[in-house]
């Protein structure tokens, strides 16, 4: 009986951890998307230095969570998101606001996809 109670407790703990993980990913992707939006706003105003700074902050934050992302997220998704960060930075360095907008939206979509994969929805489960 003891083994079964421990098994039940482990299941509940794992489920709780997975809910915490969902919350963390949502917070993280919202934070990163916020920086991206900030960068795009600066780019449209012509302030590319500030735009690069915002985008770089987002990229650094993403890369600083390397251990977490490689444990919890498929590596192909991580690589796609990382590439999208550098694409955005590339457009901002080139001071092309239009292309930066496209790259930024692509990056936000990728981050949104990473978060939505973890959500408990019928679509994700099926």
């Amino acid at each position, binding site marked *: *009986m003891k*083994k*079964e109670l421990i*098994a*039940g407790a*482990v*299941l509940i703990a*794992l489920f709780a951890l997975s809910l915490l993980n969902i919350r963390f990913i949502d917070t993280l992707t919202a934070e990163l998307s916020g920086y991206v939006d900030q960068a795009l706003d600066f780019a449209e105003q012509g302030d590319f230095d500030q735009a690069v700074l915002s985008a770089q902050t987002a990229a650094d934050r993403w890369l600083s969570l390397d251990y977490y992302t*490689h*444990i*919890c*997220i*498929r*590596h*192909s998704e991580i690589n796609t998101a990382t590439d999208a960060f550098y694409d955005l930075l590339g457009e901002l360095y080139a001071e092309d606001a239009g292309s930066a907008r496209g790259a930024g939206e692509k990056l936000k979509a990728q981050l949104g996809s990473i978060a939505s994969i973890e959500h408990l929805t019928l679509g994700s489960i099926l």
Partner: protein
Amino acid sequence: MAIIMVRTVIVFIGVVVAMRLMGKRQLGELELNELVVAVLISDIASHPLQDIGIPLMNGLLPAVVLLCCELIIAQATMKKAAIRKLVCGTPSILVQNGVVMEPEMRKNRFTLDELAEELRNQSVTDISKIKYAILETNGQLNVILFAEHRPATVGDLNLPYEDKGYAHIVINDGELLPNNLQKAGKDDKWLARELKKRDVKSPKQVYLLSVDKSGSVYYQAKEKVKK
């Protein structure tokens, strides 16, 4: 390549621990839920080995969840007959009083060829001698013959017999097993006498030594010290 090697070792240890926690039944005759879990764990745990782009947790976490579910379901099936019936099903009588039960054969999709094969495995060729042939929930076919066709036992023949009990292995490949020595009702002095009788200086020179309830000893030395 190093990543694959390390992951393989981790997954191997994880799956062995999971199977160990699930119990001896996993290694023997599996019920339906046990078979499902064993197959799933083996398959899922191997995914991170084939693709290093998949996090190791994607293989280990499902294994842990399956292990926990199996432990809970196993306990539930043990406690409640209704759950056991739902999960494992019920045994089916395929042969009764020498007659093959056609409806049960059809229900279990069991052909006469398969029945004959299973009966031959148990050295039975004449269905008319079978009182019951029961298809168990783990897929095994158990055969009970009519009383007059069963092999006679020592008790049936009223012959004198001696129950020698269980033979405890006391030395296993040079290693002394003190617990088994105690269970056999013997001590170190007895062991020293037995070894001296056989001109053996140490348990390390012994491949196998076992003793049963009647004191009968089986001894086999390691090859290099055999005389």
